[in-house]
């Protein structure tokens, strides 16, 4: 249980070939302890082969308030998707 221990976010690689995925957070006095606690807390049943811990304060995140304008640039570029292009059905391997 924390006194004033900082919060760490925990990321797990489930198995080789997969990305690390955020699984939760925990408090620890320092990064080494965070890593050990993450092992005990989030991998009791072989859920991971690799762990990252990141001090929550070090994460810069996009703000939900500006979510729409922030992601607008990708909204109107339908030509980035393969379905934008009409190709006759009888053209093979497309």
């Amino acid at each position: 249980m924390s006194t004033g221990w900082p919060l760490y976010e925990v990321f797990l690689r489930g198995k080789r070939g997969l990305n690390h995925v955020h699984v939760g957070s925990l408090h620890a006095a320092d990064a080494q302890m965070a890593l050990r606690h993450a092992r005990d807390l989030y991998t009791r049943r072989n859920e991971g082969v690799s762990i990252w811990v990141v001090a929550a304060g070090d994460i810069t995140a996009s703000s939900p308030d500006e979510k729409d304008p922030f992601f607008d640039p990708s909204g109107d570029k339908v030509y980035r998707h393969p379905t934008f292009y009409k190709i006759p059905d009888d053209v093979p391997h497309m």
Partner: protein
Amino acid sequence: MTETLEEHFDATIEHDRRIEPRDWMPDAYRKTMIRQIAQHAHSEIIGMQPEGNWITRAPSLRRKAILIAKVQDEAGHGMYLYSAAETLGADRAELTEMLISGRQKYSSIFNYPTLTYADVGVIGWLVDGAAICNQVPLCRSSYGPYARAMVRICKEESFHQRQGYELLMTMVRGTDAQREMVQDATNRFWWPSLMMFGPPDDQSPNTAQSMAWGIKRHTNDELRQRFVDMTVPQAQKLGVTLPDPELKWNEQRGHHDFGPVDWDEFMAVIKGNGPCNAQRIEHRRRAHEHGAWVREAADAHAGKGQR
């Protein structure tokens, strides 16, 4: 501005999408969510005690290892949930303080004592069985971090229930005295397990709002009925009698009818007058205080690394 934010929140809920930590949400939603998650976290933490009581007296190394793993899981579940509560702005140290000062509640079931080793089995079977009934729908809670924590928890609870049932199957194949222990434990835990689903629907004023917000997916009575229907055949297979003379299959309803729950007892236990309320909180407070030197030592060590 508030109106568009609120509209956005309502639309998210309406489309059964998830609310995420930094989204705008109504104060009442945030407060209700914090209370629900904290109460659930506290239940996991206090829930370590009734079974922890039997670790040193488990009858074999195998049973001891299983019980330790289970109690460790309860601690883990508490941590997942505290972590989810913190995404809403709750403070971890404050949550601990709220528990040990009695300002936040935990599930009333953990205020009953574990008198024999059969209780360990019956807790896995009935108490964890009821918890699973309650928790599976919460994997679809509208609050993302809570829903994700519940997915992890439900996977692990399945082991809890099965180890309990297997323990009981072993005991009922044993001596008469062992069978009596199983029946006695069932008699003591059956009604408190039904109480775990909370007061009847007509006495649960917050249910409608919670259902509208997608933080509750079924009413208390629906879940209680589901649990009874699930449990009856399990009891038959085990050869124990559920202590309710009114319990019988109702062909027309397609469900089991069952007798009235003693809601006066439920309210008394909630208000702090259960058999073990004081003991549970006192134990948690003592453990927290006795752990102070560990936290201080870790702080000192972390400070040394930074210099």
